[in-house]
Protein backbone atom coordinates (compact mmCIF):
# COMPACT_ATOMS: atom_id res chain seq x y z
CA UNK A 1 0.00 0.00 0.00
CA UNK A 2 1.58 3.23 -1.15
CA UNK A 3 1.95 6.24 1.16
CA UNK A 4 -0.18 8.33 -1.27
CA UNK A 5 -3.03 5.86 -0.94
CA UNK A 6 -2.76 5.98 2.84
CA UNK A 7 -2.98 9.79 2.70
CA UNK A 8 -5.90 9.58 0.32
CA UNK A 9 -7.84 7.21 2.54
CA UNK A 10 -7.01 9.22 5.60
CA UNK A 11 -8.53 12.32 3.96
CA UNK A 12 -11.62 10.37 2.99
CA UNK A 13 -12.07 9.33 6.60
CA UNK A 14 -12.63 13.01 7.52
CA UNK A 15 -14.80 14.16 4.65
CA UNK A 16 -16.10 17.34 6.30
CA UNK A 17 -12.84 18.97 7.20
CA UNK A 18 -11.28 17.83 3.92
CA UNK A 19 -14.21 19.32 2.01
CA UNK A 20 -13.90 22.60 3.92
CA UNK A 21 -10.23 22.88 3.04
CA UNK A 22 -10.84 22.02 -0.59
CA UNK A 23 -13.64 24.58 -0.76
CA UNK A 24 -11.47 27.34 0.65
CA UNK A 25 -8.69 26.65 -1.82
CA UNK A 26 -11.19 26.23 -4.66
CA UNK A 27 -12.83 29.57 -3.85
CA UNK A 28 -9.53 31.44 -3.89
CA UNK A 29 -8.34 29.69 -7.04
CA UNK A 30 -11.71 30.19 -8.70
CA UNK A 31 -11.63 33.95 -8.19
CA UNK A 32 -8.07 34.16 -9.50
CA UNK A 33 -9.01 32.02 -12.50
CA UNK A 34 -11.92 34.28 -13.35
CA UNK A 35 -9.72 37.36 -12.97
CA UNK A 36 -6.98 35.95 -15.18
CA UNK A 37 -9.35 34.72 -17.87
CA UNK A 38 -11.58 37.78 -17.87
CA UNK A 39 -8.83 40.36 -17.90
CA UNK A 40 -6.95 38.57 -20.65
CA UNK A 41 -10.11 38.32 -22.73
CA UNK A 42 -11.06 41.94 -22.16
CA UNK A 43 -7.54 43.12 -22.93
CA UNK A 44 -7.52 40.88 -26.00
CA UNK A 45 -10.82 42.31 -27.22
CA UNK A 46 -9.72 45.88 -26.58
CA UNK A 47 -6.53 45.29 -28.54
CA UNK A 48 -8.26 43.38 -31.30
CA UNK A 49 -10.70 46.21 -31.89
CA UNK A 50 -8.18 48.99 -31.84
CA UNK A 51 -5.10 47.28 -33.21
CA UNK A 52 -4.84 49.15 -36.52
CA UNK A 53 -6.24 52.46 -35.35
CA UNK A 54 -3.69 55.05 -34.35
CA UNK A 55 -5.98 57.94 -33.59
CA UNK A 56 -9.63 58.91 -33.38
CA UNK A 57 -10.72 62.44 -34.19
CA UNK A 58 -14.09 63.66 -33.02
CA UNK A 59 -15.93 66.51 -31.37
CA UNK A 60 -14.48 67.96 -28.20
CA UNK A 61 -15.41 66.21 -25.00
CA UNK A 62 -14.11 63.25 -23.08
CA UNK A 63 -11.41 61.43 -25.04
CA UNK A 64 -12.36 58.16 -23.34
CA UNK A 65 -15.95 58.64 -24.45
CA UNK A 66 -14.76 59.28 -27.99
CA UNK A 67 -12.77 56.04 -27.99
CA UNK A 68 -15.61 54.06 -26.40
CA UNK A 69 -18.15 55.30 -28.92
CA UNK A 70 -16.01 55.19 -32.06
CA UNK A 71 -14.00 52.02 -31.50
CA UNK A 72 -15.97 49.87 -29.09
CA UNK A 73 -19.44 51.27 -29.85
CA UNK A 74 -20.47 51.27 -26.20
CA UNK A 75 -20.91 54.89 -25.20
CA UNK A 76 -22.64 57.86 -26.78
CA UNK A 77 -20.62 59.94 -29.25
CA UNK A 78 -19.15 63.21 -28.04
CA UNK A 79 -20.99 65.18 -30.71
CA UNK A 80 -20.43 65.88 -34.38
CA UNK A 81 -17.67 67.38 -36.46
CA UNK A 82 -18.13 69.41 -39.67
CA UNK A 83 -17.48 67.31 -42.77
CA UNK A 84 -15.43 70.12 -44.32
CA UNK A 85 -12.86 70.16 -41.51
CA UNK A 86 -12.89 66.39 -41.34
CA UNK A 87 -12.07 66.13 -45.02
CA UNK A 88 -9.13 68.45 -44.62
CA UNK A 89 -7.70 66.24 -41.92
CA UNK A 90 -8.34 63.12 -43.96
CA UNK A 91 -6.29 64.55 -46.78
CA UNK A 92 -3.40 65.43 -44.47
CA UNK A 93 0.00 64.03 -45.49
CA UNK A 94 0.36 62.45 -42.05
CA UNK A 95 -2.60 60.21 -42.68
CA UNK A 96 -2.32 56.90 -44.48
CA UNK A 97 -5.94 55.93 -44.13
CA UNK A 98 -8.95 57.71 -42.65
CA UNK A 99 -12.31 56.10 -41.98
CA UNK A 100 -15.31 58.41 -41.57
CA UNK A 101 -17.99 57.33 -39.12
CA UNK A 102 -21.56 58.59 -38.92
CA UNK A 103 -23.43 57.19 -35.95
CA UNK A 104 -26.81 57.94 -34.52
CA UNK A 105 -29.21 55.17 -35.48
CA UNK A 106 -29.78 51.61 -34.48
CA UNK A 107 -31.85 48.61 -35.37
CA UNK A 108 -33.07 46.78 -32.24
CA UNK A 109 -29.88 47.76 -30.40
CA UNK A 110 -27.43 47.01 -33.22
CA UNK A 111 -25.72 50.23 -34.24
CA UNK A 112 -26.00 51.48 -37.77
CA UNK A 113 -22.67 52.91 -38.91
CA UNK A 114 -22.36 55.15 -41.92
CA UNK A 115 -18.86 54.76 -43.33
CA UNK A 116 -16.98 53.96 -46.54
CA UNK A 117 -14.86 51.17 -47.98
CA UNK A 118 -11.91 52.25 -45.85
CA UNK A 119 -13.74 50.65 -42.93
CA UNK A 120 -13.69 47.32 -44.78
CA UNK A 121 -9.99 47.70 -45.46
CA UNK A 122 -9.17 48.81 -41.91
CA UNK A 123 -10.86 45.86 -40.23
CA UNK A 124 -9.96 43.51 -43.11
CA UNK A 125 -13.56 42.37 -43.39
CA UNK A 126 -14.55 39.33 -45.43
CA UNK A 127 -18.03 38.56 -46.63
CA UNK A 128 -19.84 35.39 -45.63
CA UNK A 129 -22.48 35.99 -48.29
CA UNK A 130 -23.87 38.72 -50.51
CA UNK A 131 -21.89 41.86 -51.27
CA UNK A 132 -20.78 45.03 -49.55
CA UNK A 133 -23.13 48.00 -49.55
CA UNK A 134 -22.93 50.14 -52.65
CA UNK A 135 -25.94 52.38 -53.00
CA UNK A 136 -27.85 54.38 -50.46
CA UNK A 137 -29.80 52.37 -47.88
CA UNK A 138 -27.94 49.22 -48.67
CA UNK A 139 -26.34 47.59 -45.65
CA UNK A 140 -23.83 44.92 -44.89
CA UNK A 141 -24.34 43.43 -41.45
CA UNK A 142 -22.08 41.71 -38.93
CA UNK A 143 -22.44 38.00 -38.27
CA UNK A 144 -23.78 38.48 -34.71
CA UNK A 145 -26.35 40.97 -35.98
CA UNK A 146 -27.50 38.52 -38.64
CA UNK A 147 -27.84 35.85 -36.03
CA UNK A 148 -29.51 37.84 -33.25
CA UNK A 149 -31.85 39.88 -35.49
CA UNK A 150 -32.45 36.97 -37.84
CA UNK A 151 -31.66 39.00 -40.92
CA UNK A 152 -30.81 37.46 -44.29
CA UNK A 153 -29.54 38.96 -47.51
CA UNK A 154 -32.45 40.74 -49.16
CA UNK A 155 -34.28 41.47 -45.90
CA UNK A 156 -35.49 44.98 -45.28
CA UNK A 157 -35.71 46.88 -41.99
CA UNK A 158 -36.27 50.34 -40.55
CA UNK A 159 -33.60 52.06 -38.51
CA UNK A 160 -34.54 53.82 -35.29
CA UNK A 161 -33.14 57.05 -33.95
CA UNK A 162 -30.68 56.84 -31.09
CA UNK A 163 -28.20 54.17 -30.15
CA UNK A 164 -30.28 51.58 -28.39
CA UNK A 165 -33.97 52.40 -28.20
CA UNK A 166 -36.33 51.53 -31.03
CA UNK A 167 -39.06 54.00 -30.09
CA UNK A 168 -38.31 56.66 -32.70
CA UNK A 169 -38.35 54.73 -35.98
CA UNK A 170 -37.34 56.35 -39.26
CA UNK A 171 -40.28 55.23 -41.34
CA UNK A 172 -39.29 57.24 -44.41
CA UNK A 173 -36.56 54.95 -45.68
CA UNK A 174 -36.03 51.27 -45.52
CA UNK A 175 -32.62 49.63 -45.31
CA UNK A 176 -31.87 46.54 -47.36
CA UNK A 177 -29.40 43.85 -46.34
CA UNK A 178 -27.04 43.19 -49.23
CA UNK A 179 -24.35 41.20 -47.47
CA UNK A 180 -23.34 39.47 -44.27
CA UNK A 181 -19.79 39.69 -42.95
CA UNK A 182 -18.00 36.53 -41.86
CA UNK A 183 -17.39 36.36 -38.08
CA UNK A 184 -14.42 38.62 -37.30
CA UNK A 185 -14.09 38.34 -33.52
CA UNK A 186 -14.27 42.11 -33.18
CA UNK A 187 -16.84 44.91 -33.14
CA UNK A 188 -17.65 44.50 -36.81
CA UNK A 189 -19.69 41.44 -35.85
CA UNK A 190 -22.17 43.67 -34.06
CA UNK A 191 -22.53 46.51 -36.55
CA UNK A 192 -24.77 47.35 -39.45
CA UNK A 193 -22.64 49.08 -42.08
CA UNK A 194 -23.98 51.43 -44.70
CA UNK A 195 -22.71 54.52 -46.51
CA UNK A 196 -22.52 57.90 -44.83
CA UNK A 197 -25.03 59.40 -47.21
CA UNK A 198 -27.72 56.98 -46.06
CA UNK A 199 -27.35 58.16 -42.50
CA UNK A 200 -27.50 61.78 -43.60
CA UNK A 201 -30.53 61.22 -45.75
CA UNK A 202 -32.30 59.28 -43.11
CA UNK A 203 -32.06 62.32 -40.90
CA UNK A 204 -32.79 64.86 -43.60
CA UNK A 205 -36.02 63.09 -44.30
CA UNK A 206 -36.66 62.80 -40.66
CA UNK A 207 -36.24 66.49 -40.11
CA UNK A 208 -38.50 67.36 -42.97
CA UNK A 209 -41.05 64.95 -41.75
CA UNK A 210 -40.92 66.45 -38.32
CA UNK A 211 -41.28 69.95 -39.69
CA UNK A 212 -44.19 69.08 -41.83
CA UNK A 213 -45.99 67.71 -38.86
CA UNK A 214 -45.02 70.73 -36.75
CA UNK A 215 -43.62 68.31 -34.30
CA UNK A 216 -42.04 69.73 -31.16
CA UNK A 217 -39.74 66.78 -30.95
CA UNK A 218 -36.55 68.06 -29.40
CA UNK A 219 -33.44 66.85 -31.19
CA UNK A 220 -30.49 67.26 -28.97
CA UNK A 221 -28.19 64.87 -30.79
CA UNK A 222 -26.00 66.73 -33.11
CA UNK A 223 -26.10 64.50 -36.14
CA UNK A 224 -29.08 66.43 -37.41
CA UNK A 225 -28.23 69.08 -39.84
CA UNK A 226 -29.64 72.51 -39.54
CA UNK A 227 -33.35 72.70 -40.28
CA UNK A 228 -33.30 75.18 -43.07
CA UNK A 229 -30.53 73.40 -44.87
CA UNK A 230 -32.14 70.13 -44.30
CA UNK A 231 -35.26 71.24 -46.06
CA UNK A 232 -33.24 72.72 -48.78
CA UNK A 233 -30.91 69.82 -49.30
CA UNK A 234 -33.24 67.07 -48.36
CA UNK A 235 -33.72 65.53 -51.74
CA UNK A 236 -30.20 65.77 -52.97
CA UNK A 237 -27.64 63.08 -52.69
CA UNK A 238 -24.91 64.43 -50.48
CA UNK A 239 -22.16 62.49 -52.21
CA UNK A 240 -23.16 63.95 -55.52
CA UNK A 241 -22.96 67.44 -54.21
CA UNK A 242 -19.58 67.97 -52.59
CA UNK A 243 -20.22 71.72 -52.46
CA UNK A 244 -22.68 71.07 -49.64
CA UNK A 245 -19.90 69.80 -47.36
CA UNK A 246 -20.44 72.87 -45.28
CA UNK A 247 -23.67 71.54 -43.95
CA UNK A 248 -22.77 67.90 -43.51
CA UNK A 249 -21.37 66.42 -40.38
CA UNK A 250 -19.61 63.26 -39.29
CA UNK A 251 -19.39 61.70 -35.86
CA UNK A 252 -15.70 60.89 -35.93
CA UNK A 253 -12.79 59.72 -38.07
CA UNK A 254 -10.56 56.73 -37.43
CA UNK A 255 -7.02 57.44 -38.52
CA UNK A 256 -4.03 55.33 -39.47
CA UNK A 257 -0.73 57.20 -39.58
CA UNK A 258 1.49 57.22 -42.57
CA UNK A 259 4.65 57.07 -40.44
CA UNK A 260 5.48 56.80 -36.75
CA UNK A 261 6.58 60.41 -36.86
CA UNK A 262 2.97 61.46 -37.16
CA UNK A 263 2.45 60.54 -33.49
CA UNK A 264 4.39 63.58 -32.39
CA UNK A 265 2.76 66.10 -34.69
CA UNK A 266 -0.69 65.08 -35.83
CA UNK A 267 -2.61 64.87 -32.51
CA UNK A 268 -1.29 68.23 -31.41
CA UNK A 269 -2.17 69.72 -34.75
CA UNK A 270 -5.74 68.49 -34.41
CA UNK A 271 -6.12 69.72 -30.87
CA UNK A 272 -4.58 73.12 -31.43
CA UNK A 273 -5.63 74.17 -34.89
CA UNK A 274 -9.10 72.72 -35.19
CA UNK A 275 -12.24 72.70 -33.14
CA UNK A 276 -11.95 68.94 -32.83
CA UNK A 277 -10.13 66.66 -30.45
CA UNK A 278 -7.97 63.64 -31.03
CA UNK A 279 -7.76 60.60 -28.79
CA UNK A 280 -5.32 57.72 -28.93
CA UNK A 281 -6.94 54.29 -28.45
CA UNK A 282 -3.77 52.91 -26.90
CA UNK A 283 -3.57 55.67 -24.29
CA UNK A 284 -7.26 55.63 -23.47
CA UNK A 285 -7.38 51.85 -23.23
CA UNK A 286 -4.48 51.98 -20.80
CA UNK A 287 -6.27 54.65 -18.81
CA UNK A 288 -9.49 52.64 -18.81
CA UNK A 289 -7.61 49.55 -17.72
CA UNK A 290 -5.90 51.40 -14.91
CA UNK A 291 -9.35 52.45 -13.68
CA UNK A 292 -10.67 48.89 -13.79
CA UNK A 293 -7.30 47.73 -12.49
CA UNK A 294 -8.02 49.00 -8.98
CA UNK A 295 -11.00 46.70 -8.73
CA UNK A 296 -9.09 43.80 -10.24
CA UNK A 297 -6.24 44.36 -7.79
CA UNK A 298 -8.62 44.40 -4.84
CA UNK A 299 -10.23 41.17 -5.94
CA UNK A 300 -6.83 39.66 -6.52
CA UNK A 301 -5.71 40.47 -2.98
CA UNK A 302 -8.99 39.17 -1.67
CA UNK A 303 -8.42 35.87 -3.48
CA UNK A 304 -4.85 35.65 -2.24
CA UNK A 305 -6.11 36.29 1.29
CA UNK A 306 -8.57 33.43 0.92
CA UNK A 307 -5.76 31.20 -0.31
CA UNK A 308 -3.68 32.14 2.74
CA UNK A 309 -6.59 31.39 5.05
CA UNK A 310 -6.96 28.09 3.24
CA UNK A 311 -3.28 27.36 3.79
CA UNK A 312 -3.65 28.07 7.52
CA UNK A 313 -6.76 25.91 7.61
CA UNK A 314 -4.97 23.00 5.96
CA UNK A 315 -2.11 23.47 8.40
CA UNK A 316 -4.40 23.48 11.45
CA UNK A 317 -6.28 20.49 10.09
CA UNK A 318 -3.11 18.47 9.59
CA UNK A 319 -1.55 19.65 12.82
CA UNK A 320 -4.58 18.68 14.88
CA UNK A 321 -5.09 15.38 13.12
CA UNK A 322 -1.42 14.64 13.72
CA UNK A 323 -2.04 14.77 17.46
CA UNK A 324 -4.87 12.29 17.11
CA UNK A 325 -2.89 10.17 14.75
CA UNK A 326 0.47 10.13 16.43
CA UNK A 327 -0.32 6.67 17.70
CA UNK A 328 -1.32 5.52 14.20
CA UNK A 329 1.90 6.90 12.84
CA UNK A 330 3.92 5.24 15.62
CA UNK A 331 2.24 1.93 14.82
CA UNK A 332 3.17 2.40 11.17
CA UNK A 333 6.78 2.85 12.24
CA UNK A 334 6.53 -0.37 14.27
CA UNK A 335 5.21 -2.10 11.17
CA UNK A 336 8.36 -1.09 9.36
CA UNK A 337 7.56 2.31 7.85
CA UNK A 338 10.58 4.61 7.72
CA UNK A 339 10.59 8.20 8.94
CA UNK A 340 10.67 9.27 5.31
CA UNK A 341 7.46 7.42 4.60
CA UNK A 342 5.62 9.17 7.42
CA UNK A 343 6.90 12.48 6.09
CA UNK A 344 5.57 11.61 2.65
CA UNK A 345 2.21 10.46 4.04
CA UNK A 346 1.63 13.73 5.90
CA UNK A 347 2.89 16.04 3.19
CA UNK A 348 0.92 14.15 0.55
CA UNK A 349 -2.24 14.84 2.55
CA UNK A 350 -1.57 18.56 2.35
CA UNK A 351 -0.74 18.44 -1.33
CA UNK A 352 -3.74 16.29 -2.23
CA UNK A 353 -6.03 18.75 -0.41
CA UNK A 354 -4.63 21.85 -2.09
CA UNK A 355 -4.28 20.29 -5.53
CA UNK A 356 -7.84 18.99 -5.38
CA UNK A 357 -8.88 22.49 -4.33
CA UNK A 358 -6.91 24.03 -7.18
CA UNK A 359 -8.41 21.70 -9.78
CA UNK A 360 -11.92 22.30 -8.45
CA UNK A 361 -11.21 26.04 -8.37
CA UNK A 362 -9.95 26.11 -11.95
CA UNK A 363 -12.99 24.17 -13.13
CA UNK A 364 -15.25 26.44 -11.11
CA UNK A 365 -13.61 29.56 -12.54
CA UNK A 366 -14.05 28.39 -16.12
CA UNK A 367 -17.60 27.32 -15.46
CA UNK A 368 -18.50 30.59 -13.71
CA UNK A 369 -17.05 32.66 -16.53
CA UNK A 370 -18.96 30.66 -19.12
CA UNK A 371 -22.09 31.24 -17.05
CA UNK A 372 -21.38 34.98 -16.82
CA UNK A 373 -20.79 35.03 -20.57
CA UNK A 374 -24.09 33.34 -21.29
CA UNK A 375 -25.94 36.00 -19.28
CA UNK A 376 -24.11 38.88 -20.93
CA UNK A 377 -26.26 40.88 -23.27
CA UNK A 378 -23.70 42.68 -25.35
CA UNK A 379 -22.16 40.05 -27.49
CA UNK A 380 -19.08 42.09 -28.32
CA UNK A 381 -17.74 41.90 -24.77
CA UNK A 382 -18.92 38.34 -24.27
CA UNK A 383 -16.65 36.28 -22.05
CA UNK A 384 -16.07 32.59 -22.47
CA UNK A 385 -14.95 29.87 -20.07
CA UNK A 386 -13.54 27.79 -22.89
CA UNK A 387 -10.21 29.51 -22.89
CA UNK A 388 -7.15 27.98 -21.29
CA UNK A 389 -4.14 30.11 -20.55
CA UNK A 390 -0.59 29.32 -19.58
CA UNK A 391 -1.01 31.49 -16.49
CA UNK A 392 -3.28 28.82 -15.05
CA UNK A 393 -0.23 26.61 -14.65
CA UNK A 394 1.01 29.19 -12.12
CA UNK A 395 -2.20 28.69 -10.15
CA UNK A 396 -1.48 24.99 -10.18
CA UNK A 397 2.05 25.58 -8.96
CA UNK A 398 0.69 27.96 -6.31
CA UNK A 399 -1.70 25.24 -5.13
CA UNK A 400 1.19 22.82 -4.86
CA UNK A 401 3.29 25.35 -2.97
CA UNK A 402 0.49 26.09 -0.50
CA UNK A 403 0.07 22.36 0.11
CA UNK A 404 3.75 21.95 0.85
CA UNK A 405 3.84 25.13 2.93
CA UNK A 406 0.86 24.03 5.06
CA UNK A 407 2.01 20.45 5.51
CA UNK A 408 5.73 20.89 5.99
CA UNK A 409 5.66 21.51 9.75
CA UNK A 410 3.30 18.60 10.54
CA UNK A 411 5.33 16.41 8.17
CA UNK A 412 8.58 17.30 9.92
CA UNK A 413 6.93 16.54 13.24
CA UNK A 414 5.82 13.16 11.94
CA UNK A 415 9.35 12.58 10.69
CA UNK A 416 10.89 13.44 14.03
CA UNK A 417 8.38 11.76 16.30
CA UNK A 418 9.86 9.57 19.02
CA UNK A 419 7.81 6.42 18.71
CA UNK A 420 9.11 4.89 21.91
CA UNK A 421 7.86 7.86 23.91
CA UNK A 422 4.50 7.93 22.13
CA UNK A 423 3.94 4.22 22.69
CA UNK A 424 4.93 4.31 26.37
CA UNK A 425 2.40 7.10 27.03
CA UNK A 426 -0.31 4.53 26.37
Amino acid at each position, binding site marked *: MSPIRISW*KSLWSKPLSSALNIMLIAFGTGILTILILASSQIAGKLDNNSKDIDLVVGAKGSPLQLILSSIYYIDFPTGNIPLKEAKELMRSPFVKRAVPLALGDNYNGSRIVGTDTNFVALYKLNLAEGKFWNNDFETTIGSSVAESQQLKVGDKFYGAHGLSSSSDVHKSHQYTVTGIIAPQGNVADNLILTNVASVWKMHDEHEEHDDAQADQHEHSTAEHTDHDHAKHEGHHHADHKPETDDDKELTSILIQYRSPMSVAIFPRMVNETTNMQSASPAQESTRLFSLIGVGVDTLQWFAILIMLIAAVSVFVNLYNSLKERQYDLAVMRILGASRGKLFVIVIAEGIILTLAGTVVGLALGHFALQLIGSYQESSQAKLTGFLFLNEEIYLFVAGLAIGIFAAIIPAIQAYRSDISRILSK*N
Partner: protein
Amino acid sequence: MISIQSVSHQYPGGKQISFRDWQINDGDQWLLLGASGSGKTTLLHILTGILQPSKGEVLMKDTSIYSLTGRALDQFRGRHIGIIFQRPHLIKSLTIAENLSLAQTFAGLAKDDRRIEEVLTALGIADKIHAYPHALSQGQLQRVSIARAVINKPTLLIADEPTSSLDDHNAMAVLKLLMEQSGANQATLVVATHDKRVKDAFTNTYELI
Protein backbone atom coordinates in the same frame (compact mmCIF):
# COMPACT_ATOMS: atom_id res chain seq x y z
CA MET B 1 18.00 -17.08 18.70
CA ILE B 2 17.51 -13.73 20.36
CA SER B 3 19.76 -12.38 23.05
CA ILE B 4 20.36 -9.19 24.97
CA GLN B 5 23.82 -8.64 26.32
CA SER B 6 24.79 -6.20 29.09
CA VAL B 7 22.04 -3.80 28.11
CA SER B 8 21.40 -0.73 30.18
CA HIS B 9 19.35 2.34 29.53
CA GLN B 10 19.71 5.86 30.79
CA TYR B 11 16.43 7.78 31.21
CA PRO B 12 16.36 11.46 30.33
CA GLY B 13 16.03 12.25 34.06
CA GLY B 14 19.38 10.60 34.70
CA LYS B 15 18.07 7.39 36.25
CA GLN B 16 19.79 4.33 34.86
CA ILE B 17 18.40 0.84 34.57
CA SER B 18 20.39 -2.31 33.76
CA PHE B 19 18.91 -5.51 32.43
CA ARG B 20 20.38 -8.92 33.04
CA ASP B 21 21.44 -10.84 30.00
CA TRP B 22 18.66 -12.79 28.40
CA GLN B 23 18.81 -15.54 25.84
CA ILE B 24 15.70 -16.64 24.01
CA ASN B 25 15.84 -19.76 21.86
CA ASP B 26 13.80 -20.10 18.71
CA GLY B 27 10.26 -21.20 19.37
CA ASP B 28 10.40 -20.44 23.10
CA GLN B 29 7.46 -18.87 24.85
CA TRP B 30 8.46 -16.41 27.52
CA LEU B 31 6.70 -14.37 30.09
CA LEU B 32 8.25 -10.98 30.85
CA LEU B 33 6.97 -10.16 34.29
CA GLY B 34 7.32 -6.92 36.14
CA ALA B 35 5.34 -4.34 38.07
CA SER B 36 4.65 -1.02 36.38
CA GLY B 37 7.69 1.23 36.59
CA SER B 38 10.06 -1.73 36.62
CA GLY B 39 11.32 -0.94 33.12
CA LYS B 40 9.20 -3.49 31.34
CA THR B 41 8.12 -1.16 28.54
CA THR B 42 11.68 0.09 28.21
CA LEU B 43 12.99 -3.43 27.75
CA LEU B 44 10.24 -4.22 25.26
CA HIS B 45 11.07 -1.10 23.24
CA ILE B 46 14.76 -2.03 23.29
CA LEU B 47 13.86 -5.53 22.14
CA THR B 48 11.62 -4.12 19.39
CA GLY B 49 14.27 -1.87 17.98
CA ILE B 50 12.60 1.44 18.66
CA LEU B 51 14.69 2.51 21.64
CA GLN B 52 18.44 2.39 21.39
CA PRO B 53 19.96 1.32 24.74
CA SER B 54 22.79 3.46 26.06
CA LYS B 55 24.91 0.36 26.46
CA GLY B 56 24.85 -3.25 25.33
CA GLU B 57 23.71 -5.22 22.35
CA VAL B 58 20.54 -6.86 21.07
CA LEU B 59 21.11 -9.79 18.72
CA MET B 60 18.38 -11.24 16.59
CA LYS B 61 19.09 -13.85 13.89
CA ASP B 62 22.80 -13.07 14.29
CA THR B 63 22.17 -9.40 13.57
CA SER B 64 23.03 -6.75 16.10
CA ILE B 65 19.88 -4.77 15.47
CA TYR B 66 21.17 -1.41 16.68
CA SER B 67 24.05 -1.63 14.25
CA LEU B 68 21.36 -1.18 11.59
CA THR B 69 20.39 2.39 10.92
CA GLY B 70 17.30 4.24 9.76
CA ARG B 71 15.39 2.43 7.08
CA ALA B 72 17.28 -0.83 7.44
CA LEU B 73 16.27 -1.07 11.09
CA ASP B 74 12.67 -0.09 10.27
CA GLN B 75 12.46 -2.80 7.62
CA PHE B 76 14.13 -5.37 9.85
CA ARG B 77 11.57 -4.61 12.54
CA GLY B 78 8.68 -4.82 10.11
CA ARG B 79 9.97 -8.08 8.71
CA HIS B 80 11.06 -9.94 11.87
CA ILE B 81 9.17 -8.53 14.82
CA GLY B 82 5.43 -8.61 15.37
CA ILE B 83 3.93 -6.54 18.17
CA ILE B 84 0.55 -6.72 19.85
CA PHE B 85 -0.39 -3.76 22.01
CA GLN B 86 -2.77 -3.62 24.90
CA ARG B 87 -5.20 -1.82 22.61
CA PRO B 88 -5.52 -2.83 18.94
CA HIS B 89 -4.36 0.47 17.33
CA LEU B 90 -5.55 -0.23 13.84
CA ILE B 91 -5.57 2.54 11.24
CA LYS B 92 -9.17 3.72 11.34
CA SER B 93 -9.27 4.99 7.76
CA LEU B 94 -8.27 1.62 6.31
CA THR B 95 -10.18 -1.66 6.04
CA ILE B 96 -9.02 -4.77 7.88
CA ALA B 97 -7.44 -6.15 4.69
CA GLU B 98 -5.72 -2.81 4.08
CA ASN B 99 -4.42 -2.69 7.63
CA LEU B 100 -2.86 -6.10 7.12
CA SER B 101 -1.44 -5.33 3.67
CA LEU B 102 0.05 -2.21 5.22
CA ALA B 103 2.10 -4.47 7.47
CA GLN B 104 3.26 -6.43 4.43
CA THR B 105 4.28 -3.48 2.30
CA PHE B 106 5.88 -1.48 5.13
CA ALA B 107 8.07 -4.51 5.83
CA GLY B 108 9.18 -4.44 2.22
CA LEU B 109 7.25 -7.54 1.27
CA ALA B 110 4.80 -7.91 -1.58
CA LYS B 111 1.10 -7.60 -0.88
CA ASP B 112 -0.21 -11.14 -0.44
CA ASP B 113 -4.00 -11.41 -0.37
CA ARG B 114 -3.95 -15.15 0.13
CA ARG B 115 -1.83 -14.81 3.27
CA ILE B 116 -4.18 -12.12 4.61
CA GLU B 117 -7.14 -14.40 4.11
CA GLU B 118 -5.31 -17.33 5.63
CA VAL B 119 -4.41 -15.44 8.80
CA LEU B 120 -7.87 -13.95 9.22
CA THR B 121 -9.44 -17.35 8.70
CA ALA B 122 -7.14 -18.87 11.31
CA LEU B 123 -8.33 -16.21 13.76
CA GLY B 124 -11.99 -16.69 12.85
CA ILE B 125 -12.63 -13.20 11.46
CA ALA B 126 -12.38 -13.81 7.70
CA ASP B 127 -15.86 -12.34 7.21
CA LYS B 128 -14.60 -8.95 8.41
CA ILE B 129 -11.92 -8.66 5.75
CA HIS B 130 -13.43 -5.62 4.03
CA ALA B 131 -14.91 -4.00 7.13
CA TYR B 132 -13.51 -0.85 8.72
CA PRO B 133 -12.21 -1.03 12.31
CA HIS B 134 -15.14 0.95 13.74
CA ALA B 135 -17.51 -1.84 12.66
CA LEU B 136 -15.72 -4.45 14.75
CA SER B 137 -16.08 -5.34 18.43
CA GLN B 138 -13.19 -4.95 20.86
CA GLY B 139 -12.54 -8.70 20.82
CA GLN B 140 -12.53 -8.82 17.02
CA LEU B 141 -10.15 -5.86 16.90
CA GLN B 142 -7.80 -7.66 19.27
CA ARG B 143 -7.80 -10.61 16.87
CA VAL B 144 -7.04 -8.32 13.93
CA SER B 145 -4.10 -6.89 15.82
CA ILE B 146 -2.81 -10.44 16.41
CA ALA B 147 -3.32 -11.15 12.70
CA ARG B 148 -1.31 -8.03 11.84
CA ALA B 149 1.49 -9.08 14.15
CA VAL B 150 1.86 -12.55 12.62
CA ILE B 151 1.13 -11.67 8.99
CA ASN B 152 4.82 -11.56 8.03
CA LYS B 153 5.70 -14.74 9.99
CA PRO B 154 7.95 -12.83 12.37
CA THR B 155 10.89 -14.26 14.25
CA LEU B 156 9.75 -12.62 17.44
CA LEU B 157 6.18 -12.00 18.51
CA ILE B 158 5.86 -9.52 21.34
CA ALA B 159 2.64 -8.89 23.25
CA ASP B 160 2.56 -5.90 25.58
CA GLU B 161 -0.07 -6.32 28.32
CA PRO B 162 -2.46 -8.20 26.01
CA THR B 163 -4.70 -9.42 28.82
CA SER B 164 -4.65 -6.78 31.55
CA SER B 165 -7.90 -5.08 30.54
CA LEU B 166 -9.77 -8.33 29.92
CA ASP B 167 -11.85 -10.52 32.22
CA ASP B 168 -10.56 -14.00 33.16
CA HIS B 169 -12.36 -15.79 30.36
CA ASN B 170 -11.22 -13.47 27.60
CA ALA B 171 -7.72 -13.17 29.01
CA MET B 172 -7.29 -16.93 28.72
CA ALA B 173 -8.79 -16.96 25.22
CA VAL B 174 -6.35 -14.27 24.01
CA LEU B 175 -3.42 -16.06 25.62
CA LYS B 176 -4.44 -19.28 23.92
CA LEU B 177 -4.62 -17.46 20.55
CA LEU B 178 -1.17 -15.96 21.06
CA MET B 179 0.37 -19.32 21.88
CA GLU B 180 -1.41 -21.00 18.96
CA GLN B 181 -0.41 -18.33 16.51
CA SER B 182 3.20 -18.10 17.59
CA GLY B 183 3.39 -21.87 17.25
CA ALA B 184 1.67 -21.91 13.87
CA ASN B 185 3.97 -19.19 12.54
CA GLN B 186 7.14 -20.55 14.16
CA ALA B 187 7.64 -17.36 16.09
CA THR B 188 9.24 -16.90 19.45
CA LEU B 189 6.71 -15.42 21.84
CA VAL B 190 7.37 -12.88 24.57
CA VAL B 191 4.39 -11.75 26.61
CA ALA B 192 5.06 -8.76 28.83
CA THR B 193 2.60 -8.31 31.65
CA HIS B 194 2.05 -7.60 35.30
CA ASP B 195 -1.01 -9.86 35.12
CA LYS B 196 -0.34 -12.81 37.46
CA ARG B 197 -3.25 -14.79 35.98
CA VAL B 198 -1.25 -15.81 32.93
CA LYS B 199 1.79 -16.92 34.91
CA ASP B 200 0.93 -20.61 34.93
CA ALA B 201 0.77 -20.85 31.17
CA PHE B 202 4.52 -20.22 30.80
CA THR B 203 7.51 -22.22 31.81
CA ASN B 204 10.04 -19.52 30.96
CA THR B 205 9.86 -16.32 32.93
CA TYR B 206 12.11 -13.27 32.85
CA GLU B 207 11.25 -11.22 35.88
CA LEU B 208 12.16 -7.60 36.39
CA ILE B 209 12.63 -6.50 39.94
